[in-house]
């Protein structure tokens, strides 16, 4: 990776978004190569600490990919994660990191083109913002 390239982590729940990511491959939908997907069972398991670990270690953007509201396989996991993301955005502000670098996306469709276009949009936004300038302290 070039020093200027953004480093982006996507936490993808293994249901709609992870299947969407796989389908992007099956459909050969091309998207930015600067994202790394970490598979989780449900977005409900993601903690502020997971997200902050990413920023602390130099991530320029974190996207959390979950299922549509009302469609969580664990009923409330995604709703809970929305709150975690809101709170973590506040923590990011305290640390001098733009909260826009963190996003939660709820996927209604498992088709690959949706996944690819959402990822590309997010990468483009992070690219515009540039690399994170502040060091995050623990």
């Amino acid at each position, binding site marked *: 990776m070039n020093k200027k390239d953004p480093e982006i982590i996507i936490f993808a729940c293994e249901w709609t978004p992870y299947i969407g990511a796989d389908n992007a491959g099956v459909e050969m939908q091309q998207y930015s190569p600067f994202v790394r997907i970490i598979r989780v069972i449900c977005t*409900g*398991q993601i903690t502020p*600490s997971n997200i902050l670990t*990413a920023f602390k270690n130099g*991530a320029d953007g974190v996207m959390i990919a979950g299922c549509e509201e009302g469609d969580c396989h*664990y*009923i409330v996991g995604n709703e*809970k994660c929305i709150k975690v993301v809101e709170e973590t955005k506040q923590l990011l502000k305290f640390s001098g990191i733009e909260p826009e670098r963190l996003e939660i996306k709820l996927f209604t469709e498992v088709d690959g083109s949706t996944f690819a276009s959402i990822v590309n949009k997010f990468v483009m936004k992070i690219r515009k913002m540039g690399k994170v300038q502040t060091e995050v302290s623990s």
Partner: protein
Amino acid sequence: MEEKLRIGVFVCNCGTNIGGFLDVPEVAEYSKTLPGVVYVKENLFTCSESGVNEIKEGIKNNNLNRVVVAACTPLTHEPTFRAACEEAGLNPYLFEFVNIREQCSWVHKNEREEATQKAKDLVRMGVARASKLEPKDRITAGVIPSALVIGGGISGLSAALSLANRGFKVKLIEKEKKLGGLVKSLYKIYPENINAEEYINQKINEVKKNKNINVFTSTEIKNVGGYIGNYKVKAENDKGNELNFDIGVIIVATGAKTLSPEGLFSYDGKKVIDMLQLEDKLKNDGISQYKNFVMILCAGSRNNERVYCSRICCMSAIKNALLIKEKNPESKIFILYRDLQAYGTTNEETLRRAKINGIRFVNYSLNKLPEVEDNTVRVYNEILGKELLIPADLIILATPLVAPEDNENLSKKLKVTLDENGFYLEAHIKLRPLDFSTNGIYVCGTAHWPASTEESTTQALGAAARSSIHLEKKYVMVEPIVSSVYYEDECRGCGLCASLCPSNAIEMVETPKGVKAKVIEVACRGCGICGASCYRHAIRMNHFSDEQIKAQIRAFLEE
């Protein structure tokens, strides 16, 4: 003493699916430099017999204690590779899958260099995660060989009979005073035109006579605790008596109801009636005084308020139109429709027969709804492009099936999901169409979606068969990807995890060290909400622990 890591990495070319778009030899060479890696092998197809054997030999010959495969998606071949590890004597949960096909080579086809770099990163992340994996044993638990069927309509009766005839005990709960459900109010059942009342009474008698079935009418579910194989159900009857059942599996067959026609097309219950009232008139020879019939389909459905199609109303209208013609060949019948659902060969044939018998079909649109006037219906025929005035002695509204309000309540007790229309939602439309995502609970009939008697029965038999798998086996085996109270001393017994758990899988128990959370592993579905919420970090998700996730994050970013 901690065992020294001996990680084996297998990088798949997948023919040219991976090797064609990124530099597999480079990824393999790079893998050798990663901490803990002692063996690396490049395969043409890792999932082939020879590839799987290479994993097994790799484990045996190199004493591997972790295996990482970089290939396609875990959603397809994870079981294959886990089994290979297990056969070679390695705990299958010490295996890690890295997705470099669907999520790398195929989505960066024209960026060989970036794709190769990404694959290296992903392998590095996988190796870091593998280092933190722990061996796990599959969880087994007994199953109480008894089923609960909720709802005593055609679906519930069919499911109960099917299970009982295979020798399983069934508790059948119906909230109304009598069994039979919606079919009881019908005149004849399509397509064979068998007498609905006789048919349903015969089923009810079979159920009542069956020694394996206990029927509880005027009874409602109060509370559902427990988990697959071991549900504790509390119900209450109209006399206020509490009933307690120990149950292995649950079938939801609560049915649907027809939308009330109040307020639609000048409904008055006399001259403008709904389809169920027509069925009643047919049953009691109450149609001989009418000559001109008009049926309005999609009454109250497929509009902004209720977007879905109820599917079965078209055919029940056509069926009843033919029955009217049979009783009174002189009658004139108009069916006003928007689109016709006459799917399948039998239905198409019936529609054709209706047309041959002189039943007229008039196409109207949502923008120009028919208007009911004195002794006429005014309708704009979309095909002719002009307005028609149709004489009408009796106007019948085909209203859709809608979900009972009670679904909201019951679904919460069962911890299962509803769709946007309030019907019960299956786990997967194709892979698990009769299961809920909560293990051990199944759905059939119109509780799921508007369905014909035939479809409801088919689904009921399917749900009975699905649920009987567990009853027959007498045990359930669950993947050990569940949460556990890993640091019990840290648990303060606050109960937050238990209250947040969407699967009722955490109980608070009294221990010598005070109240502690305890995970009912067989009920846990592994969402990890508990772990994310514990302010003491006492409870955690096995196999997707914070430590493992953070190892992946750091491995990506530290390079």
